[in-house]
């Protein structure tokens, strides 16, 4: 009981404040507060079920301060308690009674609780000061700890309410709406002022009689408060018209009855909502952090107006306010109390908590004090952090569209669409998906946003509270809209139902033909401006592709972090990772390669071609010698006569002296290894020579025998065919050239590309696709060369979602030198590397996708070289049908397909043996765009399977969505 007593006393204090406020300044401001209560109050009753044993401990802190005050001032009055308890019940009910006529009796008890709740939350600021000196603190706090869960739960509610301002769904649809709009409902304001006066009288008189003692004590505070409050009011009322905001503001350090009253209303509202939801668990868990946070506020027991840290100063000293808990700090303390402000102006202890919704408007608006304390750069960084950090973003559940609070991805979609709602604030909105009309519930449209966004529920007929019986896309339109329609020349007789598309074309329900375009006439737009109705913005004409690219550009950092999925692409050198990487850039990027890169690539390709030519020329010399030798042998067999034309002996491989000189020069350059150094000068100088060379018979003959030249890469034929073109100084490589070229990726180590899969063709209301288009991927390519024995830095890649391991199928008969200089089959090297990666601690539990690359050349090669050439594949004994010619047409798989499946199974078994998990595998032809696209989409599938697995619900993203869904019940 003692607790209750204390609280009661508190209540009394508040009321006494109210008396104080009777002064002229208050009346003007206060009326706004009241509207909040109207329907919500009954809901308060729901609060009582809330008590949880667990919640007990958390909220306690605040009450302490309240209690302290009480303890100090009102210990003498303790005996009063029993009687004052009744008082307490009276006051809240009285408010309720005035505001909502259908007040139920049963509320009595609940309202009492409510009262407690409000008082405790409000009081700290004023109370705390008083209590600073008091020794009774501890005692009273103990008392409070003993408080029932009821109190604490109430407490949570009010705290939350402060933070939330406009909570969700039904609860606030009517009320909070008004608040946010500002002075929207004029009638509401009037009413409220009435009720407020009454309640004030009521409570005031009641209080006075009993609590004069406390009252006197608080007098001095009130005076100071009032001045503070007035100043606040004037400033604030400009920014936000809602009464609640202002009340919240002065709740910081000043207290008065006005504040008390105003506050109570929101509290009630909130409880109402929660109870309606009957979603107690969720509610509790959600409110918990806030409770913790609020706890901090009273922890600094501060005299009103003083700094929360040094406890010095008065209300006139300039202070910075924490965006979360409202603590105020003077300029000596603000840097200490707020630290490095990674999320803007928040106490160090408040970091990570969402900001008070009432302060949202001041996000990113710097105070003079900070500007004085810090230099421009620092202030800029703080404000940037404040505006863009993730916790400070609008919580999706505060925005309800068509009667349903949004999920996180819906909000993202809404904000990142090409034509997003302007200045989105918490509130209740309606959205007409067909036409893109957007407005606040109960009002005419505000704006036309991007249509067809899959957010919220279907639009309701009464969404804009129209009474014209004319419908647009199922929504009854308002009078203003109807007027506009009429003036725009739309036939509205007979209460028609219209379908309006985003381009303004409209048709009557049930009819096929378009009747016209609403915004087609120039006059209509002017008219709309006069009637303050929205017109479609130009950007809505954008086609789908542009929209998707704008998404990628406007994506803020915090979102990027969340939605980006990292795919790591690795493979032994020569496995084609770079081709896949280049292919991905060409596939998904508008500009796959920048000008600089292209310039660099041009040089690389040209030097490659010179290199190939050099190899051919080397081969030519060999062939020439061989054929000369042959010729001589032949001639010697023929007899001495043959020697006669020995000087002029010609083989198909001979070249003229000029070309010979060039050939010698080139071979010399190549031998010295300075081929790169001669560029780009060589291109200009030698292009004609090369042209001549290429057309020479000898060169062509050598080219025909290129398969005999081992050092000539197979890809060279692609470039040699067009060597003349390439070696012209104005050569610009095509995407295909780049794709085919080797060693053109500029970076030695890691390269990455961000992309998103292009939006699939829009087909109906498939929401999954829209969601997917928001997901962004980052393909990271690492060169195998960088992987040492113990690559410590692989731990940097721990946030990768899938490792795509690339193996070149055609490697099975290739050999390379390993670290010890031994000649080892390249497939075995790949296998070794694969084992290393799979067992690396960083990739523990990581999904692996095996891409078996170069399927095309594998299919060719396997016909000639048996797969068993690689010792790992020695048990490959395919059953091959006799009639090979028909194999493509019939169901018989080709040898290449058999080989691929065999290799895939080999790797899968290896993977399973190493990790006990499943390896995903796919074949790919890196030079074929669709094949790479399919492979990367397969990686996306792997990711989504991964997400669907229940044990992965720990990932941040899915937690978020589950939370949101449970909340929306």
């Amino acid at each position, binding site marked *: 009981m003692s607790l209750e007593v204390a609280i009661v006393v508190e209540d009394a204090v508040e009321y006494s404040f109210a008396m104080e406020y009777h002064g002229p300044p208050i009346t003007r401001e206060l009326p706004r507060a009241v509207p909040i209560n109207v329907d919500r109050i009954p809901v308060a009753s729901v609060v009582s079920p809330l008590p949880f044993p667990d919640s007990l401990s958390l909220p306690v802190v605040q009450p302490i301060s309240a209690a302290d005050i009480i303890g100090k001032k009102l210990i003498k009055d303790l005996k009063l308690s029993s009687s004052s308890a009744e008082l307490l019940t009276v006051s809240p009910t009285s408010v309720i009674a005035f505001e909502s006529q259908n007040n139920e009796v049963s509320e009595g008890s609940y309202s009492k609780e409510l009262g407690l709740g409000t008082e405790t939350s409000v009081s700290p600021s004023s109370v705390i000061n008083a209590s600073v000196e008091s020794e009774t603190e501890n005692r009273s706090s103990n008392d409070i700890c003993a408080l029932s869960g009821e109190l604490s739960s109430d407490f949570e509610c009010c705290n939350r309410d402060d933070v939330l301002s406009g909570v969700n769904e039904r609860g606030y649809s009517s009320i909070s709406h008004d608040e946010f709009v500002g002075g929207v409902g004029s009638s509401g304001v009037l009413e409220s002022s009435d009720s407020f006066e009454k309640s004030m009288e009521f409570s005031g008189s009641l209080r006075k009689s009993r609590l004069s003692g406390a009252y006197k004590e608080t007098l001095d505070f009130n005076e100071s408060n009032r001045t503070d409050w007035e100043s606040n009011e004037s400033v604030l009322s400009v920014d936000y018209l809602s009464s609640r905001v202002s009340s919240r503001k002065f709740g910081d350090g000043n207290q008065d009855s006005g504040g008390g009253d105003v506050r109570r209303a929101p509290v009630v509202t909130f409880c109402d909502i929660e109870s309606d939801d009957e979603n107690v668990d969720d509610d509790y868990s959600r409110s918990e952090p806030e409770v913790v946070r609020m706890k901090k506020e009273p922890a600094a027991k501060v005299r009103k107006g003083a700094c929360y840290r040094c406890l010095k100063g008065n209300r006139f000293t300039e202070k910075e306010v924490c965006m979360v808990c409202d603590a105020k700090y003077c300029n000596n303390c603000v*840097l200490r109390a707020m*630290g*490095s*402000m*990674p999320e803007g102006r928040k106490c*160090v202890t408040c*970091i990570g908590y969402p900001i008070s919704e009432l302060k949202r408007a001041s996000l990113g608006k710097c105070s003079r004090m900070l500007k004085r*304390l*810090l*230099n421009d*750069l*620092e202030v800029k*960084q*703080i404000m*940037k*952090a404040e505006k863009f950090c993730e916790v400070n973003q609008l919580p999706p559940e505060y925005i309800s569209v068509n009667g349903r609070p949004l999920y996180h991805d819906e909000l993202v979609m809404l904000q990142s669409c090409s034509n997003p709602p302007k200045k989105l604030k918490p509130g209740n909105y309606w959205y007409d998906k067909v036409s893109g009309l957007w407005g606040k519930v109960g009002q005419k449209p505000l704006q036309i946003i991007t249509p067809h966004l899959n957010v919220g529920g279907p639009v309701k007929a009464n969404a804009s509270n129209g009474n014209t019986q004319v419908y647009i896309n199922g929504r009854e339109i308002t009078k203003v809209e109807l007027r506009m329609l009429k003036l725009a020349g739309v036939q509205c007789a007979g209460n028609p139902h219209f379908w309006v598309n985003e381009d303004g074309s409209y048709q009557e329900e049930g009819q096929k033909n378009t009747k016209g375009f609403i915004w087609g006439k120039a006059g209509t737009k002017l008219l709309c401006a006069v009637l303050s109705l929205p017109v479609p913005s130009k950007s809505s004409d954008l086609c789908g592709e542009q929209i998707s690219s704008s998404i990628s550009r406007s994506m803020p950092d915090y979102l990027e*972090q969340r939605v980006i999925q990292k795919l790591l692409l690795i493979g032994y050198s020569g496995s084609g990772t770079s081709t896949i990487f280049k292919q991905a850039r060409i596939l998904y990027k508008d500009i796959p390669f920048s000008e600089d890169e292209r310039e660099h690539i041009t040089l690389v390709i040209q030097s490659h071609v010179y290199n190939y030519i050099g190899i051919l020329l080397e081969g030519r010399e060999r062939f020439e010698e061989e054929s000369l030798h042959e010729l001589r042998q032949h001639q010697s067999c023929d007899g001495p006569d043959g020697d006669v034309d020995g000087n002029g002996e010609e083989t198909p491989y001979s070249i003229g002296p000029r070309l010979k000189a060039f050939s010698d020069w080139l071979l010399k350059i190549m031998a010295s290894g300075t081929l790169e150094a001669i560029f780009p000068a060589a291109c200009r100088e030698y292009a004609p020579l090369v042209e001549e060379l290429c057309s020479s018979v000898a060169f062509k003959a050598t080219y025909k025998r290129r398969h005999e030249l081992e050092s000539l890469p197979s890809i060279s034929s692609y470039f040699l065919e067009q060597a003349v073109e390439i070696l012209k100084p104005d050569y610009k490589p095509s995407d295909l050239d780049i794709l085919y070229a080797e060693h053109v990726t*500029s*970076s*030695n*180590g*890691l*390269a*990455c590309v961000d992309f998103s899969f292009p939006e699939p063709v829009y087909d109906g209301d498939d929401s999954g696709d829209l969601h997917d288009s928001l997901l962004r991927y980052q393909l990271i390519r*690492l060169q195998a*060369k*960088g992987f*040492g*024995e*113990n690559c*410590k*830095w692989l731990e*940097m*890649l721990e946030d990768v979602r899938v490792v795509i391991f690339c193996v070149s199928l055609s490697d099975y008969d290739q050999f390379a030198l390993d670290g010890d200089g031994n000649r080892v089959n390249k497939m075995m090297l790949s296998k070794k590397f694969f084992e290393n990666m799979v067992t690396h601690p960083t990739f523990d539990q990581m999904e692996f996708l095996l891409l078996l690359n170069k399927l095309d050349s594998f299919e060719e090669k396997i016909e000639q070289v048996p797969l068993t050439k690689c010792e790992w594949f020695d048990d490959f004994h395919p059953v091959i049908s006799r009639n090979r010619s028909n194999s493509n047409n019939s169901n018989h798989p080709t040898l290449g397909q058999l080989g691929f499946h065999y290799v895939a199974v080999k790797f899968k078994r290896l993977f399973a043996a190493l990790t006990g998990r499943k390896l995903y595998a796919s074949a790919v032809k890196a030079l074929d765009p669709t094949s790479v696209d399919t492979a990367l989409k397969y990686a996306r599938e792997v990711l989504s399977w991964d997400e669907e697995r229940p044990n992965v619900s720990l990932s941040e993203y899915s937690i978020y969505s589950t939370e949101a869904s449970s909340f929306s019940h």
Partner: protein
Amino acid sequence: MSVAELKERHMAAAETVNSLKERLKQRRLLLLDTDVAGYARSQGQTRVSFGPTDLVCCRTLQGHTGKVYSLDWTPERNRIVSASQDGRLIVWNALTSQKTHAIKLPCAWVMTCAFSPSGQSVACGGLDSMCSIFNLNSQTDKDGNLPVSRMLSGHKGYVSSCQYVPDEDTHLITASGDQTCVLWDITTGLRTSVFGGEFQSGHTADVLSVSINESNSRMFISGSCDSTVRLWDTRVASRAVRTFHGHEGDVNAVKFFPDGHRFGTGSDDGTCRLFDIRTGHQLQEYNQQHDDNEAPHVTSIAFSTSGRLLFAGYTNGDCYVWDTLLAEVVLDLGKLQNSHDSRISCLGLSADGSALCTGSWDSNLKIWAFGGHRRVN
């Protein structure tokens, strides 16, 4: 000569090298009659003692969202640059604990960062094998990002460490995973010299850290995964001046002693060591015995201005303050109030020696300094 014959000779040579190394080791052991700690004790030195307020965490720099990998102080003003896995470099004002620049990097996998001696620019390097220079005074682009003012490309492996040559804004030494160190001329963006690599006297594994001698900026040391430290003269790129053996694991951190005649190392074997560059001998080993067999690795080290204290960060979140003379741990920052939650990845002392900054995988940096009130007599 046939391949087999060559192989044989190679084997024999390798054997000879090993036996010579072993003999060298034995010889060194013979010569070493004492270590620093033993001598200091015999001279009656007493350990440094720390009062409760002598070293406290007085600032926490919050703002990174990923593991902090590296930090560096400006030589003059109280600014710090830090690099983190969130792909950002942040320049901090250590006094106000505010950020002055947040630089979004083109490649998020950054491993090292450094402040130029003039404080006008910062350098960073990472898995992209480049060293990027940002001029802090240049204009930001339309997205608010600072443009790269110079890319130093040429390494064939990740850039693990970089440091500006003292008093020269135009020269920088990087260490890389391609087993080399490179001295760069920033104005031209070209390599002035390459240390190691194809040369036999170079490191035989990834180089993880460099430290330039403050008193003689021609000399620098590099620590590597081959568990050796090498001393280089920038005028002689062809071979290392000296190679220091001793560690039994990757050398993660090297740091010159303030007098420039010695240097400290930190390694995966869990020890820190002090070497003398003139004699080539190991002077002291700093090793804290752990109950479990797995000793935490040393990630980063720093000396106090006098050299009496050695700060060493460990993978388990400890940060020991060693008395370099007595080889005793006099303080563990990891056990103090407000300590880091995770591995200490980097640490550095401010130029005037008044503050220590530690960076951790918990994404915070903390500044440690004298936190009490000085008694005025």
